[in-house]
């Protein structure tokens, strides 16, 4: 009940957030001048150019143009994507699915592996597993993604040939239906092990490249908060009750150590989303990030606007989830205060 109220209250901020960010981004995309270039071609004469200007209301003042855009959005029309030469709404869902598949895969890698590494390191502080994990995670937090991704690409695709790039083998991809757009899930629905394996095989390299940095951050946070929790009196009290070390660690210390880690995981998701742009370009992943990069380079305003709207809404939801999980873990937190 209380949690539901809190979620509703937080969601009420959503419209304001969307209006605010859309105005800012709309203005920013215009700093570089008119977006008309994306719609033009060499064969067009002056009349045709004028037609385009009228079609996209480019002669009106900027606030009026914004209202045209907003009106379109409210009726489900996000405009014409010059990069894809198609309406934004036609291209967006499949790109979104591709990006989310990659982000979620690397997010799962980061959370599961990061918490595990942090627990192992924190529980065996200053012993060799801790030292190994420290080196691995410092490397993860300091290697730039673009460099690490290219190294993976060169080693595992160019030289060893163990992993492919791109998102799928087109023949296998076309052999199954795509009701959700998530290749792995579609493969499971179609009961096609061949497609599922193809999906996983393509996911591995980009997910590792993208997830490594986040894993490192989560692991380091988990380690330090676990070390801190293990010093607490209640850990000694748990031992004094006769609990085996496994339960002292898992049931008592780790649970409380997760509290600060969850906050970091929430922030890491933004980091992941940002990383998809680089990872998608390097691994030729047909997702939002690469689409967005093209759009920015070519001044495709409709595409940029759609992406930013999506990103800000997603961020709000992730933060909401983090807050709710936080309140679940730390009983002293009262939501909404």
């Amino acid at each position, binding site marked *: 009940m209380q949690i539901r109220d809190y979620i509703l209250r937080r969601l009420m901020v959503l419209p304001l957030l969307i209006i605010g960010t859309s105005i800012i981004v709309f203005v920013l995309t215009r700093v570089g001048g008119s977006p008309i270039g994306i719609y033009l071609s060499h064969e067009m004469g002056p009349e045709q150019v004028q037609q385009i200007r009228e079609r996209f209301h480019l002669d009106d003042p900027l606030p009026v143009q914004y209202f045209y855009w907003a009106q379109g959005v409210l009726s489900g029309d996000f405009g014409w994507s010059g990069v894809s030469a198609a309406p934004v709404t036609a291209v967006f869902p499949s790109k979104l699915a591709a990006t989310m598949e990659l982000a979620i895969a690397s997010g799962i890698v980061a959370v599961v592996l990061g918490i595990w590494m942090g627990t192992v390191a924190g529980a065996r502080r200053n012993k060799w597993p801790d030292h190994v994990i420290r080196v691995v995670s410092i490397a993860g937090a300091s290697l730039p993604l673009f460099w690490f991704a290219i190294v993976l690409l060169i080693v595992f695709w160019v030289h060893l040939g163990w992993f492919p790039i791109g998102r799928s083998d087109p023949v296998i991809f076309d052999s199954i239906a795509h009701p959700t757009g998530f290749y792995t899930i579609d493969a499971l629905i179609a009961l096609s092990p061949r497609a599922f394996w193809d999906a996983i095989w393509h996911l591995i390299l980009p997910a590792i490249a993208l997830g490594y940095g986040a894993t490192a951050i989560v692991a380091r946070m988990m380690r330090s908060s676990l070390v801190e929790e293990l010093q607490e009196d209640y850990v*000694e009290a748990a031992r004094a009750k006769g609990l085996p070390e496994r339960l002292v660690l898992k049931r008592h210390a780790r649970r409380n150590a997760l509290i600060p880690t969850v906050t970091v995981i929430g922030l890491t998701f933004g980091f992941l989303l940002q990383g998809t742009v680089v990872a998608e370009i390097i691994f030729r992943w047909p997702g939002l990030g690469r689409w967005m990069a093209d759009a920015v380079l070519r001044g495709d305003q409709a595409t940029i606007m759609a992406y930013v709207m999506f990103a800000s809404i997603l961020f709000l939801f992730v933060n909401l989830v983090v807050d709710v999980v936080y309140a679940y873990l*730390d009983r002293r937190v009262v939501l909404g205060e």
Partner: protein
Amino acid sequence: MLTNLEEHDAIVRAPDVIASVRDLKIHFRGKRGMVHAVDGISFDIRDGETLGLVGETGCGKSVTARAFLRLVQTPPGVYAGGSITFRPRRVCDDCSGVGCRECDGTGRVAAHCPACGGKGCRTCGGTGEETVDLLSIPDAQMRALRGNRIAMIFQDPGKALNPGLTVRDQISEVFLQHRTAEILAAAGVSPNDVLLRRQASQKSRAFEKMLLAVPPLRSGRNRVDAALDTMVADALAQTQIPNPRKVMDRYPHELSGGMRQRVMIAQALACNPDLLIADEPTTALDVTVQARILELIRELQQRHKTAVLYISHDLSLVRRVCDRVMVMYAGRVAETATSQQLFRRPTHPYTRGLLGALPGRGAHRGRLAAIDGTVPELVDPPAACRFVGRCPDEVAACSRTDPPMVEIEPEHAAACFVHAPPGKAAATRPVRTP
């Protein structure tokens, strides 16, 4: 262990001794050398008595207490020598723990020596009772004693209770670790039911919990949970918590300090331990609550005839609560006596200093007495009395050798060349020194 027992024949002659510490040494590896936190102390805890352990901060009293549960972190701690022999009891067969004439109302009887089954042999020194050396038994055996035969109440209940678990979760853990058979019997579940037995001993893994949440198995799980709830509620009710069933669902932060300490006490006494270690149990509480908590510990102790090792730096509390007192200074025993003897005839200059520092009726307003100087560094200490430098009555011998414990009157001994000179009384028997 065998040789230890032969050496320390005291335990055979005095069967009412529940635990006996001999020449215990606990050191800590520090940057500048070995810190001798506890440096060769010996004492006995008798069945059902309250032994006070007094001394200022850093004198080794908490470390001594933790050694009973082997909770000193190693490293940096090192158990450098000595032994702690302990005679665990078991639940009385005749009354199954309720208390009857057979067990003198305690609900516990001595556990049989595993080597001879109670007939008396060399291992148990002819008593037929099980004796274990807490410092040398395997970890699993130690864990079986923790919270079960030896329990501990911590100083600050706000920190010693896990903020993320309910009172029910925390108290039930004690039963889950030590009373699996009883839980299953109360729930009417066969002890051969593997899934439920694992649940009732906190061994279930995630997939087992999922299995137990599905209907055909769920009823069994619910019965075990209900039995456990009853046990937890009974434990809480013992500490006079009003409405135990409601308190069970609370988190520690929702309770007051006094209530938290009651929960802590309920948790410690849940399995009717033989020895309760109370590490300054009222220091973190309001003065008004302190008295009630002390009263509660005292009452529960008398009802169950539990031996209590009561650690405190507050002499006025110790006087009210304890049968006997042991004063520690810098890792050594300075003086042991009954409470009356200690306050009537304090012998060691350190004890006198402590008593003098108590603001009494005769003291002038605005002037508080203190012992000059601070506790010495315990890094590789020389063979000398530890109180040298702060002692008002110091003589040359004090800085040359360690004073041995010398009996002044029955039950009363002190380690001081000046006030308890060795060889003065014919009956003096130096207690073992290293």
